[in-house]
């Protein structure tokens, strides 16, 4: 297990997340007898595995048909910076090393492929430039417009409209219009002069080379810093998978995927209507429908991932699409087919992307495919509010009951929660938790772990004392919905909350009644529950809320979309 850090933060502006813990893939090999040495061997090649991601949505990150990054992208960059700092600490070899990235830009299907290919590449490059603080790349985007993607003085106005330094008010407060009217032209000139004066540049009132270099640099810092306001900056050689070997085209480090990998497909009827869109209102409706597909996704790969751009299948960000098409699924046309009366989302169907190579990164990524995990919360003490999370304890989870079932090791978080990848909709999870002393305080506290284990986290092998941990068996996926079989659903939840002695499926009427009575007694006054003996709807809903939904406070939960069940 390479990654016990759990971050999932999905919002309207994009996402920052760790990928689900990738379990160890055992390689099956054949031994070779003496007489076949020289003839037989087994090949071992590492897999390309992404461990984390960031998605920047069009708005507020980008403007429509533009590669300019708006101020709204800043919070996402900050979340990404914090995630990268966590991942860096997790490198067993070197705590100063960030894992390497590759950046993929995406456009929507409107317009021709060649145009979209270049636009998506420009967006990815724009993000790359911020991460490595390369103002020359931005200047190139600024000086060489591509169709509708024209930075113009709109970009300058936008940059001057933010507070570029702590406690420094914005230099520009006028409309962002590209200085098209006399008023805004004057205001922009004035703002530029003030800026130039403040930075010791010649007061020209024009965004000349020197002014742009300084302004871009400061705006990049405004966009991309960590939670303490410190610059978050990556090295183009050390922190990208192709190591900047292709300095000009950035092949392998930055990709433009054109419109090939949509995350949303409209119904056939809607698409037909969009295709005929003539007036602005119709075009706006079309563009709004495809908004989620216009995005930039950054993938973070395992430490030690390095590829040769010459052998990397994706073409250079701003070049043609021929090499993309070579990498399409054999059924690529079907994947993007608009179906009558049916909208499709990658989030739900996971089959809307044409490029097979990209699909492999997107399918397990919370940034593209959302997230499904078994969320398990450990608490001790049944009577509220004394039930406290069993936080920061070591656990070992075996997900599945097949031979060589994946084993996940880590620690519970502050809420006493662990998140395990959903590999199977219905499976057995064997859990071991280092928590005997929590239930039985008289027991000796666990010994501090030997120093060589510290810092290695779940990347280390078995915990030396894990066989002594408290054991649980979870029947994952067996949880009844409360609307289906009310009694069974209630029994399971009561049992999981600590009531009853036998397995809930074996409860006699008496044990069930006693559990309901105990529950209502202890929750009296919470969520409308009153003391009593019957399993009424209020009690059932309270059980559901407490067991499946309720968020412990504080801190807020990291995950909103886990499946019902635990």
């Amino acid at each position, binding site marked *: 297990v390479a990654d016990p850090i759990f971050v999932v933060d999905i919002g309207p502006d994009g996402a920052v997340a760790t990928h689900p813990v990738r379990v160890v893939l*055992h390689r099956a090999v054949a031994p*070779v007898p003496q007489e076949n040495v020289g003839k037989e061997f087994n090949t071992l090649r590492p897999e390309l595995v992404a461990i984390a991601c960031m998605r920047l949505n069009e708005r507020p990150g980008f403007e429509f048909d533009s590669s300019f990054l708006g101020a709204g992208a800043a919070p996402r960059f900050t979340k990404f910076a914090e995630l990268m700092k966590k991942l860096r600490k997790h490198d067993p070899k070197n705590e100063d090393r960030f894992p390497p990235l590759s950046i993929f830009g995406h456009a929507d299907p409107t317009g021709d492929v060649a145009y979209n290919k270049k636009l998506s590449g420009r967006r990815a490059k724009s993000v790359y430039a911020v991460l490595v603080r390369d103002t020359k790349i931005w200047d190139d985007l600024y000086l060489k417009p591509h169709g509708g993607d024209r930075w113009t003085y709109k970009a300058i106005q936008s940059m001057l409209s933010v507070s570029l330094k702590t406690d420094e008010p914005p230099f520009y407060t006028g409309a962002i219009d590209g200085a098209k009217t006399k008023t805004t032209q004057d205001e922009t000139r004035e703002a530029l002069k003030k800026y130039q004066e403040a930075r010791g540049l010649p007061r020209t009132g024009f965004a000349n080379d020197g002014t742009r270099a300084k302004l871009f640099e400061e705006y990049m810092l405004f966009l991309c810093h960590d939670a303490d306001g410190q610059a978050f900056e990556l090295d183009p050689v050390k922190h990208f998978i192709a190591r900047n070997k292709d300095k000009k085209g950035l092949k392998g480090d930055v990709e433009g995927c054109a419109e090939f990998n949509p995350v949303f497909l409209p119904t056939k009827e809607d698409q037909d209507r969009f295709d005929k869109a003539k007036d602005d209102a119709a075009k706006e409706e079309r563009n709004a429908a495809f908004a989620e597909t216009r995005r930039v996704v950054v993938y973070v790969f395992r430490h030690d991932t390095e590829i040769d751009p010459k052998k990397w299948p994706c073409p250079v960000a701003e070049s043609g699409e021929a090499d993309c*098409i070579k990498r399409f699924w054999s059924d690529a046309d079907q994947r993007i087919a608009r179906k009558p009366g049916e909208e499709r989302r990658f989030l739900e169907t996971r089959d809307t992307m044409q490029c097979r190579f990209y699909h492999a990164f997107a399918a397990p990524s919370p940034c593209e495919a959302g997230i499904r995990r078994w969320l398990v919360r450990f608490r001790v003490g049944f009577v509220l509010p004394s039930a406290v999370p069993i936080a920061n304890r070591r656990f070992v989870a075996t997900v599945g009951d097949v031979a060589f079932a994946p084993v996940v090791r880590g620690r519970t978080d502050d809420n006493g929660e662990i998140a395990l990848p959903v590999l199977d909709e219905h499976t057995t999870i064997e859990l071991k938790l280092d928590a005997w002393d929590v239930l039985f305080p008289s027991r000796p506290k666990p010994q501090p772990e030997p120093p060589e284990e510290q810092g290695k986290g779940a990347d280390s092998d078995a915990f030396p004392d894990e066989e002594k941990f408290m054991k649980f068996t979870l029947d994952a996926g067996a949880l009844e919905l409360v609307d289906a079989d009310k009694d069974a659903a209630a029994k399971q939840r009561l049992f999981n909350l600590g009531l009853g002695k036998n397995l809930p499926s074996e409860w006699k009427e008496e044990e069930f009644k006693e559990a309901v009575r105990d529950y209502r007694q202890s929750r009296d006054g919470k969520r409308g529950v009153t003391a009593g003996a019957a399993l009424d709807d209020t009690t059932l809903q309270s059980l559901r809320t407490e067991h499946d939904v309720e968020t412990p406070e504080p801190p807020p939960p990291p995950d909103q979309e886990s499946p019902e069940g635990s």
Partner: protein
Amino acid sequence: MAKTHVVKQGEHATGIAERYGFRDYKTVWEDGANAALAKNRNPHVLHPRDEVAVPDKVVKKVPKPTTETHRFRIATTKLFLRVKLRDFDFNEVKSAKYEVVISAADVKAPRKGSTDGSGILKEEFDRPFEPIVDVEVRVTVVPGSGTPQDHKFDLRVGHLNPKHKLSGQQARLNNLGYFAGFDVEDLQQFLWAVEEFQEDHILLGKSKVKKTPKIIDETDDPNTPTGVIDDAAFLEKLVEIHGC
């Protein structure tokens, strides 16, 4: 009385032979009763439920005087872990330092070595061959940029299934770095890996992958091909590149 041994996952001819007291797997494998099984099959790539006939032991009598000292030579098979290491770009990883934990004795002091000029790592297994512990391989690759990369592989020796089985094809694709899924039920992931492999090693970018290979479920009959059944070129290339 000759016996029949029903293969379990992870077993191979040398291990089975040794269990029944044979020093050389060929004594068992080349027995006439195994002719059907042995046809076109690698004795160290068996499938669960394969049936191996175990012949009776034959006592070999060699008359020698009792008053002298004699030396007898017994033919034994040596068994090796032999892997070719490749990097992300499919280059052979030549002269790379590695550490291998191949037996319980290696846990404290892993065996060390360097891959040869074609990226091959070779280590001999200790006797007895059964059970072979899970093998761990750590390789340090120094690529073009000069930053050493560490790669770790967890191997299960003897677990490679025959090439005409879906599980066997999946394992080979996984070994080649095309993630083909954890088990035979993950057909979507398997298809992903099949198409990627075809692209890289058969079509070479000259034409598009045309059709989704047809898959049928794994059957109990060891000689019924499963997995990609309509693409002989794929199967041949897969075994050639994987190495067995």
